[in-house]
Each structure stands twice: as structure tokens, then as C-alpha cells.
């Protein structure tokens, strides 16, 4: 079975309690695992401020999943997102080879604030 690596981020409403929020995350995670996706990484960014209000909310819980799956799973996942009223926004992207490499380094903490910021600051000063 041909598999791609994907990354999905979604925003949950801030009105949920801590338990409801983990419930929502688990139910969406279940959509992935039940359909034969292999979870590679998951990150919970917690309650973050949104750059602009969505559905009159100014904050939201961010959750990221990185998974390997067949191509048709993405459609199933996005239907689950649309049906779920707790989800404010979602984005699923396919990872190409550079993105997978980047994601691996990010997972291992090699893309830290220090490692990445240092050369960039040097370039901005020159420019």
C-alpha cells in the first residue's frame, strides 16, 4: 500500500474544559489510528492566542499530528474535522522529503531557538 507522510494541525475552541479538550483530541486521533495511519509525532501547543478572531474566539487549543497513511485517509480526516463543531480550523499538508527531514530535526529538538536563530540574525545584520 502506497503511503505518504502528512502533517495536520487543527484548532479547537477555547470553551472546552481540559477533559473535553483531551476527549476531542483523542476522538480525532482515533480517526487516524482506526483507518490504519501510523502516527509519527504529536504535539500539543496548548491554548494560544489567534492572530485574528475565528467564530468570535480570540484563543484556541492547537494540536499537531504527523502521520503516515494512504492517500484516501486525508479526505476521511477532513470530513471528521468538518463534522466536529469543536474544530475551528484545520490544515493538512503533505510532507515532501525536505519537510520530512525538517520535521525529524524538529522532533529531535535540533531546530531549537538557538541553532536556527544564530545564522539568521547574522544575515539580517548584514542586509
Amino acid at each position, binding site marked *: 500500500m502506497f503511503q505518504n507522510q502528512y502533517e495536520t*494541525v487543527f*484548532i479547537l475552541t477555547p470553551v472546552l474544559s481540559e477533559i473535553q479538550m483531551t476527549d476531542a483530541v483523542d476522538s480525532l486521533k482515533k480517526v487516524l489510528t482506526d483507518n490504519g495511519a501510523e502516527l509519527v509525532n504529536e504535539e500539543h501547543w496548548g491554548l494560544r492566542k*489567534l*492572530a*485574528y478572531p*475565528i467564530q468570535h474566539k480570540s484563543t*484556541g487549543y*492547537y494540536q*499537531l499530528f504527523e502521520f503516515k497513511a494512504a492517500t484516501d485517509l486525508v479526505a476521511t480526516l477532513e470530513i471528521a474535522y468538518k463534522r466536529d463543531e469543536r474544530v475551528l*480550523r484545520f*490544515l493538512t*499538508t503533505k510532507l*515532501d522529503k*525536505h*519537510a520530512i*527531514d*525538517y520535521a525529524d530535526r*524538529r522532533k529531535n529538538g535540533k531546530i531549537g531557538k538557538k541553532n*536556527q536563530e544564530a*545564522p*539568521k540574525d547574522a*544575515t*539580517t545584520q*548584514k*542586509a
Partner: protein
Amino acid sequence: MPQPKKPKHMSLVNERVERKDQVAKKYCRFKKAGIKYVDYKDPNFLLKFVNEQGKILPRRLTGNSLKFQRKVSVAIKRSRHLALMPYVADGLK
């Protein structure tokens, strides 16, 4: 009354002003730093490629190569969709 002496040759074309010393050569920072993937999850980095209203800066200002300008613009658009960056802003910087 003596007329001011005219130069022999009057060209209508503006003379080129030499400014080579002042203007640094533009370069693509991604090529230089060897960055291959532009992450949409890092709004602080993408902030370098927008103006203070949140608009994407053109290539002639950022110096990005076409390949990476495309990647940057896609990353910024993804970042906006996830409300990590604003679509419209005032005084972002």
C-alpha cells in the same frame, strides 16, 4: 556680457550615478544558509518577509530566489489560515 560657458556636448540622458559602494548585493538567504524547507509553523521567522501591514514583500526587496519566494509565500498563506499570522494588521513591526 559674457555668457556662461556651455559644455560642448549636452546629453539628454541622465548620467549614471555610481552607487556601487553603498548598495550591497542582494542574495537569497535560503540558498546561503542551506535551508530547504520553509516552515509555516514558525511565524516569527516568516515575519521577516512581510511588511508592517502583514503583506508579503516582493522578491526585489527580500532578495529571495524565485524557488524560495514561492515557498515563503505558500508558508505565509498557510500560517495565516491557521491564525498564526494575521491577514491584515497594523503596526506589525
